[in-house]
């Protein structure tokens, strides 16, 4: 799994003004709710005019951000772009430095965390990938196209184009699902 260097860590936490684990947890939950669970962004007084410098605390405790949320509000403005950024970052994070690909097991774990909450089709996808042991790794293209697939293809697969340029894994998945998916395999 990915490594984060110490200076990267300090740079990141200081920009966010996080100095304890509970606050870090808070920040991560905020981010997860926003991007993965698709919750409404947190509203604060500063929400209307997010500024880079938000160090001065206002009167009400509830108004006070536990950490610097300026990035958070930046993400909230374009959640799609923010999620894509997160998603692509995760590939690099999960990838062993010498390798071009990440192991399928790792990829599945990531997908179940990143995509499954928002896209119902992912659970079936994971079922499929687990059933077929022939897929050993996910390359960058499959990684990117998986998000594209989730975003553009209807869960019913009605708008899936067989002659589109999907990676073969996705073609195989569609064929598998159209053949009856897990039910057909069981019988």
């Amino acid at each position, binding site marked *: 799994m990915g490594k984060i260097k110490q200076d990267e860590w300090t740079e990141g936490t200081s920009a966010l003004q996080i100095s304890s684990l509970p606050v870090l947890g808070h920040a991560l939950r905020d981010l997860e709710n926003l991007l993965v669970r698709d919750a409404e962004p947190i509203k604060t007084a500063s929400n209307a005019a997010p500024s880079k410098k938000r160090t001065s605390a206002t009167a009400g405790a509830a108004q006070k951000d536990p950490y610097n949320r300026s990035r958070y509000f930046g993400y909230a403005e374009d959640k799609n772009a923010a999620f894509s950024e997160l998603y692509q970052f995760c590939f690099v994070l999960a990838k062993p430095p010498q390798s071009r690909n990440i192991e399928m097991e790792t990829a599945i774990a990531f997908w179940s965390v990143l995509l499954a909450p928002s896209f119902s089709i992912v659970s079936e996808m994971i079922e499929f990938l687990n059933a077929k042991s022939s897929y050993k790794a996910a390359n960058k*293209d499959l990684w990117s*196209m998986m998000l594209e697939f989730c975003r*553009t293809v209807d869960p019913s697969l009605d708008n899936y184009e067989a002659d589109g*340029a999907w990676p*073969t894994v996705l073609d195989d998945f569609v064929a598998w699902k159209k053949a009856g998916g897990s039910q057909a395999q069981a019988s």
Partner: protein
Amino acid sequence: MASPAGNSAHPMPPATADLTTTWAFLEEGVDHIMTKLQTGVSYSKYMSLYTVAYNYCTSSRMHGTTDAGSGASNRTGANLMGSDLYNNLIRYFITHLKLLKDQSDSLQDEALLRYYAAEWDRYTTGANYINRLFTYLNRHWVKRERDEGRKGVYPVYTLALVQWKSNFFLHVQSKHQKLAGAILRLIEHQRNGDTIDQGLVKKVVDSFVSLGLDETDINKASLDVYKEHFETPFLETTEKYYKQESESFLAENSVSDYLKKAEERLREEEDRVERYLNTETRKMLVSKCEHVLIREHSELMWESFQSLLDYDKDEDLQRMYALLSRIPEGLDPLRKRFEEHVKKAGLAAVSKLVGQGAEGADSLEPKAYVDALLEVHRKNSETVNRSFRGEAGFVASLDKACREFVNRNAATGTSSTKSPELLAKHADMLLRKNNKMAEDEDLEGALNRVMVLFKYIEDKDVFQTFYTTKLSKRLIHGVSASDEAESSMISKLKEACGFEYTNKLARMFTDMTLSKDLTDQFRDRMQQNHDDMDINFSIMVLGTNFWPLNAPTHGFTIPQEIAPTYDRFSKYYQTKHSGRKLTWLWNYSKNELHTNYLNQKYILMTSSYQMAVLLQYNRHDTLSLDELITATAISKEILLQVLTLLTKAKVLVSEEADQYDLNPGFRSKKIRVNLNQPIKAEVKAESTEVMKAVDEDRKYVIQARIVRIMKARKTMKNQPLIQEVISQISHIFAPKIPDIKKAIDTLLEKEYIERVDGTRDTFAYVA
């Protein structure tokens, strides 16, 4: 001035004579010319007639005229006078034609035609003279009238024809088309086989053409009379006649006979046009006949096509082809049926062959298989050339059918590699030494026939792989029939599939030549430096990438007897080509051992493994299996097979299990004993191994092709890219779309190509 003509009833009137006098003189002359020209007209008579007509036209004297159109006051004399003469001429023609009309009324059929033709001749000849007689009238009055847009005025000859048409021709025709009917009846007689006066018909038909008049330009020929009064009814009766005839003929005769009949009829009708119809009619007549004789019965012809094929009725097929090729949609069903026929014949031939062999497809003789396919191709290809004139559509049908049955038949089952395999094996047999079936000239022919089938093979890469394997065996074992035949075959393959396809094969020959030189050089060097070379050594150094050979997967201890040679050569080669790695293919090597332990000296021809085992007995008389394994480092599995062969040949004897003794009493009828039989496992592995190699190769072929295409195009959409790959590779094999997609996946991963940002289905070449 001219003097009065001698034998005229009227004296020649003076230039100032009035109309009545003038016309009386002229009419007598005109009538003479029109009715009894055969009695002759003297030059002076003719001149005086001409002069009188001229004088009258040019006389400036005002004259009472009935011509309403000539009222303009500035008219010259000819204009005013012209109409008088013109009207009198009309009156004359009407009277003259009334006579003909009366005489013709009682005539029928041929008699009518004869009368009509004779009168037509006389009339047109006369009218021609009259026309010239009134040249002045034509040139001035008629021209002026026409220039001013009066339609009903014609030059005198044309006037004569117009009058003939309205006063005689239309009259006769008005009675149930008496004239045209008579012609049509004559034609029908001819169709029924009677002889008719074709000249007569031609004359009458020609008159129809002459009577046509284009009102806007009288000099232009017009076929309206011909078309209306002759062509239309002619085509109608033709259709009726042949409809009736073809139906009744088919009711009583076979299709074969009908083909002959129809062919004959079509030729006859074309001749008819040549003989006595206007050429304009050809197209419509022919298409009418084609419709009635061919199209109307095309279903029936298509139906009987199969039986003609089944019974090899070449002539009938030829005829059917010729007939149906005349209608645009005629041949397609034939082509389809022919394709089906060839396919069936091919499949049947193979099924028969497979049925004969006791063990079915597995034990199929390559030669028998190839011959069966070739025979079907030869026979049907001849049919195409002979009966269908080598027409491209039929050639395509033949090719399509052949491609089908060559690749998929009872022998191949679902395997797409069986046919290329058998064909490559057949080629191997042809090119081997001791091949009885091929004399030299015949060999070339046999190879050409291999190429005929090769053209149809879909998986040409499978053939290539088998061929390469077989060639390598021929070369290594020195059993190739001739270098000439080999290179001839390679150039044929190169011609069919390009340089890349045969590159490896050509390189193999290069390696062979180089190896021969290398062996000689090494031998010379050794003779200079060592005097203990009691081993005759020859080597082949073969490029790893060009030869389908695999190094042994197990160990091999080089026997001490050959170790010095091995070391010397390895060193020699290193000094010659430093940096090259030699892999010793013991599994392909062979040896000859001379026995000294027996009364009779034998030469044992062995594999290297056999040699390694036998050499152990230079120092021992008996050895256990384990000892042999230790000594040779050959795997137990293979060693057991080696030993089985050696004990079977009685070189070794095994009296106890896993115990092998040298047989001191070995005997053989031959001095040279060949022990080098192939080991079973090797034979069986060959086919599957080839397929594995082919599949592996295909991946790279597809990837390489994609990279090449992308390098040229820079960016390309997914679908066109796949199409392009298919079209570029299909002459070698038919790539499957999932395989291409996999190759794209791989190339994306290796970053030879990338997806263009913001698009899902566009790829870009990564430089």
